[in-house]
């Protein structure tokens, strides 16, 4: 909270006088330089990572024919990106991912709030939940194929099953983490269970929910790709499977980069969302310049 000295240079004395309480209320939305700094740092991180990747095969630590250097992979990716197949596959992946994540998120949030705030329900379900959670989505593949073959629903089953638990557990912990004083305040004003859930529990659990969303988003992406890879539903994963079966590592890694990039973009989105909906929370406001 006190770390940053990023306050702009002190305004001129005359200006300073004007900064009374009244004028202080004037909104002054500025594109914070910290945002820019963060973006630059992130880029540096990526460049370092790519540099490392480039170096490892070039220095002969692993054979380049099995792990092609980053430059080669990026060239391959650029070539792919010029083809419509790539974009169709990407769209297919995004569709499976988005739908699956959406369903999992809604279900997890609704069930998580419901079960998390009714202790009896929670006690009743916890053994089942703990039993079901560690069952790998991949084990459900035969079942999914049996039911829907390579239809998108197969992908959805796997994606929803995997992402649901991640969000659900976060929501459960989040629901438990309300400030009791806030909760009592709401109760004393006669707010019912539903109203409290909407106005108190939901905002207090939001940090957990957003972490759950970030976790779930990545897992959903992973499962979307994996199911395409194994079952062969259309999408990036299927392309990866073809490339793997053909012994073309440059293509495999190019597609992996595309996958990873999706992950990065998704994270940027969730972070932006977090800055909007959690601007009041210590974790976010602590980072605003003080």
């Amino acid at each position: 909270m006190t770390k940053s000295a990023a306050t702009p240079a002190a305004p001129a004395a005359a200006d300073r006088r004007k900064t009374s309480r009244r004028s202080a209320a004037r909104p002054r939305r500025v594109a914070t330089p910290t945002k820019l700094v963060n973006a630059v740092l992130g880029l540096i991180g990526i460049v370092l990572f790519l540099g490392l990747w480039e170096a490892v095969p070039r220095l002969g630590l692993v054979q380049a024919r099995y792990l092609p250097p980053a430059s080669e992979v990026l060239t391959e990716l650029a070539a792919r990106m010029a083809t419509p197949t790539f974009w169709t596959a990407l769209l297919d992946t995004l569709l499976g991912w988005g739908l699956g994540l959406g369903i999992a998120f809604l279900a997890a949030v609704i069930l998580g709030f419901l079960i998390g705030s009714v202790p009896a329900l929670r006690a009743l379900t916890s053994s089942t939940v703990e039993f079901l959670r560690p069952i790998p989505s991949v084990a459900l593949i035969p079942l999914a194929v049996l039911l829907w073959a390579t239809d998108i629903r197969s992908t959805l089953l796997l994606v929803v099953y995997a992402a649901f638990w991640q969000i659900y557990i976060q929501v459960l912990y989040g629901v438990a983490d309300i400030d009791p004083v806030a909760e009592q305040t709401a109760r004393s004003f006669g707010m019912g269970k539903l109203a409290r859930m909407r106005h108190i529990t939901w905002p207090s659990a939001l940090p957990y929910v957003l972490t759950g969303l970030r976790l779930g988003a990545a897992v959903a992406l992973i499962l979307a790709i994996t199911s395409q890879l194994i079952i062969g539903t259309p999408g990036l994963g299927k392309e990866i499977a073809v490339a793997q079966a053909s012994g073309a590592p440059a293509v495999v890694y190019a597609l992996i980069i595309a996958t990873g990039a999706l992950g990065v973009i998704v994270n940027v989105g969730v972070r932006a969302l977090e800055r909007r909906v959690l601007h009041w929370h210590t974790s976010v406001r602590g980072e605003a310049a003080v």
Partner: protein
Amino acid sequence: MSHAATQQQPATTTPPQRRSPVAAMLRRAGLRLVYLLGLPVALILVWWWASASSGLYYLPAPDVIATTFGEVWFSERFAQDALPSIGRLLAGFALAAVLGVGVGIALGLSRSLRALTEPVLEFLRAIPPPVLVPLLILLVGVTTSMKLLVIVSGCIWPILLNTVEGVRAVDPVLSDTCRCYGVRGPRRLVTLVLRSASPQIMAGLRQALSIAIILMVISEMFASSSGLGFTIVQFQRSFAIPEMWSGIVLLGLLGFTLSVLFQLVERRVLGWYLGLRAATKGE
């Protein structure tokens, strides 16, 4: 001034309406049993009905699975295949916990470090294990450490993310208190940062525990010749469907057992937190 933290005097404090303690205990135990088994029993019944009515080869009835379970797992296979896997699972989980919390604290405390690494970490996070495994085989080889790495690579994320968020959310008043009294370095980490992030870290660890089980299976789907995951995949590939389901049931039971153990640990670690919550409810 007298502050008599009066010890409870049984005669005056036991509410009269309560029945004998033994009966109450029995009732509580019964209730817990109902909570524990109620839903599973209901679900098994539904499964029974579904498998009977569908007649699907891939959906054997629960009694078939149960018999198979006994045949398959009450044998030396448990010691040969399951135990080493569980060992790897626990080792991987422990490693991920240490790494996740350690790195998470570093990232949570330093904004620039976080900005620097976040895109790369998010990139790595989005890579599915089935394509990550080949890379790990290439880099590490077909060894136990490769399997551990697969487990770590998957279950570190919930720990890491939750730790980062927990550390970021440290109460500024507590943080100021520490600064004032010159509490820094390792002591600050232990007494302030870790403890105050612990509810969220525990959420991450709980997530990671079941993910570790999943990744144990995945790590044994490649480059393996034994193990719980390998066995399940082998059953699946050789169309031994009831056997495959029995393996899945074992995974579930494993998850359940670990989560019960985890809960015990959690109750210790978060004792203050649970107490605080109960206290304000006046219990």
